[in-house]
């Protein structure tokens, strides 16, 4: 690996004779026995710097979770009210079969347009279709 590396580097330095000539030198020196003592110095620092493990008691953790949940609930509720007020949330209406009865369902709806459509229908067949539909579905009270 080193041989191949050196060859490559030598090739790369072929146009730079001064750098090629200086290659391999390490001009830096260290104090005597520096490397013999380095492990001890690092070891001393490691002893001075114990790893701090933060322990959180269960009750404190529960209190923190409760506080976080309260904040989320408050923001969620406020956001829901805001969006609903601004009309961005449209509730889906699900009705039970009992609710879908004439009395419950149609009392709240303006279906006079059906009467008008039936009255204004020029085509006899079209009128018949509407009348049949109303009869079949027990909606004749609309004509009353």
């Amino acid at each position, binding site marked *: 690996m080193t041989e191949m590396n050196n060859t490559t580097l030598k090739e790369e330095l072929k146009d*730079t004779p001064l750098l090629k000539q200086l290659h391999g030198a390490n*001009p830096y020196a260290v104090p005597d026995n520096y490397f013999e003592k*380095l492990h001890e110095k*690092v*070891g001393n620092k490691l002893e001075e710097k114990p790893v701090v493990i933060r322990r959180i008691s269960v009750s404190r953790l529960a209190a923190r979770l409760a506080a976080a949940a309260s904040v989320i609930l408050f923001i969620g509720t406020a956001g829901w009210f805001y969006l609903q007020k601004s009309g961005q949330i449209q509730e889906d209406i699900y009705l039970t079969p009992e609710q879908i009865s004439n009395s419950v369902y149609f009392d709240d709806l303006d279906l006079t347009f059906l009467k008008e459509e039936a009255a204004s229908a020029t085509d006899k067949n079209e009128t018949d279709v509407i009348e049949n539909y109303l009869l079949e579905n027990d909606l004749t009270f609309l004509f009353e």
Partner: protein
Amino acid sequence: MPEPPDDQLLIEMFAVPEKRNQAFKLLMEKYQRRIYFHIRKMVIDHDDADDVTQNTFIKIYYGLENFRGESQLFTWMYRIATNESLVFLNAKKKRNSISIDESEISLPAHHDHDPLLSGDKMERKLLKAIDTLPDKQKLVFNMKYFDNLKYEEISEILGTSVGALKASFFHAVNKIEKILGED
């Protein structure tokens, strides 16, 4: 001198609490010179290099347990050393720009006064020339020229493409050669 232990063996030893300190000592013995000189070439001053080297090994100690072997151990350690050197140099630059009256000698001038430089006149000139390079270019040059690292390894350490590293080394070499050639 006995052959230094294999990296994988050191990692496995380190994972055993009773053998951790011994493994770390062997790891330091194996790599401390390379790490120290890599840092020294960046920060220049021995005392600064000593501080940064110690911090680097402390980070290695705390990080080794989570080392997943996705890169070679020594490139991972070089990366930590490189980051620590850059953080140190940035902090030093900030300190120097804040304290205008500071009479600290500049790094190139430092080479003329450093008793821990064993190089001759030309070698000192080389170090001064290297100091004129931007930090990243200096790193690439040092790792290639002094440490004989492959571009692929430097790429792993610096997170830069091999192509960009080659270009960076080429520019650095030309700049330095030009400075060396000046009287």
